[in-house]
């Protein structure tokens, strides 16, 4: 099908094209407690085509994209391509070049067995240290084998295969009076049984503490420690601020070589984009536009070294060697875990939903479970919320030397922000 589309595109009036053909076989299992609620299979192919058209004597470049369904006949494909070319003529952006074939070493061909990955997950979930009072409420297992081919009009033609998986888990804990729940979603390449068990065991312990949690005190402002995957949202803000699209659109005013927080008195952030992280679901040789991916430092001690992003915005910003980044590594900070966890602070292990707005930097989240450390006293707390802005927090944040990986982010295991607004309920 893709070869037929390439033929049609070459014979068309398009001045350029990109095709991404992804074939997915997915195994899914849905459980209520440990009984199977439903099993599902996804057996699909999605072919996405983007066409380019030079406009205004080549000063502008039009583009339009769409899915070419695998059920279409040759005539229908031609009609769809003509429609895309017509649409591209209405999308006038300044000219930019598409990616050209580059030198890179392709990863070894992997042989993904989706049935085996799924079975490993089903087996792993039966080995959790549940008790009569802390146990699994329900979970959903998603395992995928993906084969992707990317072709463009500049001569790039790459095919690679990769696994992708996800487990959603709801944990309950109960005492004589009530029952509570905590929620986790884990993404990875394949089933990492030991890490999955370790993390869910931690959540089971949190469940026990949630039962005895007191209302969060009215702290006004406090230091907050983030020890879970919620910290990924904090580092995602740094990632977005270094996105070429954000820079070009002026949503981010960060500049290469200029310290983003010159008055910062805490740890400074060093952010790297890396091609591979162990068992990441996003280990790719090339990005979705065909640019080769390699390790590069994006932010070093709060100073941008380069920006990453799609070909178009990089061309406008004259950033030649970069790409759309998928895996990120944040260098550990100056503090030990013990130093991070010192003095008075609130350590939050569960939010209803922790968000960091990429444009404003505002953070917000309702506290489902935290631990308030007031000298020697530790109190599990629940309720209320935190808020504030990353633009301020960046001036004093601390990171642990120890690291922890959450799918495509390898970040300091503990992150501490100072002077966070805490809306308590007591």
């Amino acid at each position, binding site marked *: 099908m893709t070869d037929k589309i390439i033929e049609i595109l070459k014979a068309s009036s398009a001045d350029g094209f990109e095709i991404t053909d992804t074939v997915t076989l997915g195994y899914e299992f849905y459980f209520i407690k440990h*009984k199977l609620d439903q*099993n599902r299979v996804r057996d*699909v192919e999605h072919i996405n085509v983007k066409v380019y058209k030079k406009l205004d004597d080549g000063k502008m470049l039009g583009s339009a994209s769409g899915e070419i369904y695998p059920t279409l006949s040759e005539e229908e494909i031609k009609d769809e391509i003509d429609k895309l070319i017509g*649409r591209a003529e209405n999308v006038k952006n300044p000219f930019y070049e598409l990616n050209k074939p580059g030198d890179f070493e392709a990863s070894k061909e992997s042989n993904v067995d989706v049935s085996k990955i799924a079975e490993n997950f089903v087996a792993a979930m039966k080995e959790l240290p549940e008790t009569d009072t802390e146990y699994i409420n329900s979970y959903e297992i998603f395992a995928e084998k993906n084969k992707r081919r990317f072709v463009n009009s500049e001569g790039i033609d790459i095919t690679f295969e990769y696994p992708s998986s996800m487990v959603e888990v709801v944990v309950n804990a109960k005492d004589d009076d009530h029952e*509570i729940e905590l929620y986790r979603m884990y993404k990875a390449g394949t089933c990492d049984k030991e890490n999955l068990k370790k993390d869910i065991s931690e959540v089971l312990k949190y469940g026990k503490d949630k039962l005895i949690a007191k209302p969060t005190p009215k702290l006004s402002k406090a230091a907050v420690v983030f020890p879970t995957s919620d910290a990924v949202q904090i580092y995602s803000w740094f990632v977005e601020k270094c996105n070429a699209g954000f820079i070009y659109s002026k949503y981010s005013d960060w500049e290469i070589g200029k310290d983003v927080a010159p008055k910062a008195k805490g740890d400074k952030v060093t952010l790297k984009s890396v091609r591979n992280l162990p068992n990441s679901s996003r280990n790719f040789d090339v990005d979705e536009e065909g640019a080769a991916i390699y390790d590069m430092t994006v932010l070093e001690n709060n100073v941008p070294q380069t920006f990453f992003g799609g070909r178009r915005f990089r061309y406008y910003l004259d950033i030649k060697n970069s790409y759309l980044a998928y895996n990120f590594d944040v260098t550990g900070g100056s503090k030990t875990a013990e130093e991070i966890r010192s003095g008075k602070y609130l350590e939050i292990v569960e939010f209803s939903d922790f968000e960091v707005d990429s444009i404003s930097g505002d953070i917000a989240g*309702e506290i489902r479970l935290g631990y308030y450390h007031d000298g020697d006293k530790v109190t599990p707390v629940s309720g209320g919320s935190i808020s504030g802005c990353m633009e301020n927090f960046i001036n004093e944040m601390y990171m642990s030397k120890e690291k922890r990986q959450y799918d495509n982010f390898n970040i300091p295991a503990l992150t501490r922000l100072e002077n966070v*607004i805490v809306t308590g309920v007591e």
Partner: protein
Amino acid sequence: MKAKFSSYLEKLAPSLKKLIDALSSDYDYVSVLASDSKGFSIQASQKSKAITGENMTTERGCVVRVYKDGLYSEYSFNKPDVDVQAMAAKLKTILDDQIEILKRTGTEIFDTAKLEDEPIEVFTEMETDVMPEDVDLGALMKKLQSYSDKAVSLKEFMIDAPVSAKSTHVCKLFLTKNRDMRQSYVYTEGSVLAIGMKNGRNTMTVEGVSGRTGAGILDGLEEKVEIAVNAVGDMLSASPVVPGEYEIITSPEVTGLIAHEAFGHGVEMDMFVKKRALGAEYIDKRVGSDLVSMHEGANCVVDVASYAFDDEGTLAGDVTEIDHGILKTGVCDALAALRLGTKPTGNGKRENFEHKVYTRMTNTMFDSGSDSKDDMIASVKKGYYLEGMFSGMEDPKHWGIQCIVARGREIIDGKFTGKVVAPVVMTGYVPDLLGSVSMVSTDRESFGNGGCGKGHKEWVKVSDGGPYLKAVARLG
């Protein structure tokens, strides 16, 4: 005009019926949902323009649901084989591989009864103004660009104003041995995202239009431009709210967010099956003040989630969830209904043909009351008028609620002081929040922009809304 049903699905239907026949020798229940939904997404901003034929609801594909020995299994595909017997054999082989995994791991089945298959025939082509396929995207791009340009020209602090529109012609075909249900309708949404910067601080807000109609509704974006720009200006000069409990007046958009997060997700009855929702224990009990009544259903209002039947072939409904403060019932998909011994309400929805059905909201609306907005504001001693919605999160197990609201306008002694706080995180215990509702306005609106997830995935179109409410809430 009527939104014409997909000719692709018309042609596919006979072979899908044969597939049902072929699978019926191995399975006790077989259904197929086939979708062919075409549309577009278009955006114009100061630095970028884009058109794509894809949006959240465009799709073409099928999902087969089969039942045997107490277990429901599904197979999603988008390359139907012309050889129906080969297709049936492939489906059975791959589902059998999954059954082998269950055997090897000693997995028990959550035993469920067989779905009823009473005969139903539906053919609905709903009215619309313009089909997405017929929209002149060149002209629309110029119009959206003019809105973006106007927004940026209005104030110096504006750095960009992406203006977006999406429209989808939804066509769905649901078949069993006894059911043949076909529906075709169009929905459209558009938004102005105003982004401003002042003194090194960025912020933004969104204004939108939506409806179960065509691109004609997008003309309404023009009047949203100035509203969005002025709101961003207020937010750039805003201060953080002093954390505490306040009297609040919610705009209909924020009212909708409360409806959605409090008693939308809280009464999705597949959560009752898993014992994940406190709502199950509160049927026929008080959960709000006498002034609180709420409806949920595809037939409750006409907005983006107003369809004729859901993704399991259940006809659309209109459920009274809360009647004068008393929780009456929730909403339910077909399998959850079987497990709970109740009737489905037409709320079984999939993100698309590749996803499982869950109980999902459609249109969730607070009923109107008898107060005027002006009287409500005049009655506030010290509090905030909350407007603009960013996001929310449900917590059905504990009835906690998290709503992130764009801004609050201070009211002291019944008058606006001109002071604005932003952003505002509203949290609380749902029965406390709804129990504090003391005034409800006569008018109401629905809003259908964006998408709704279940947990952190499974995105579907919903709308929500209601009148202005006066209540007491914790703000931070």
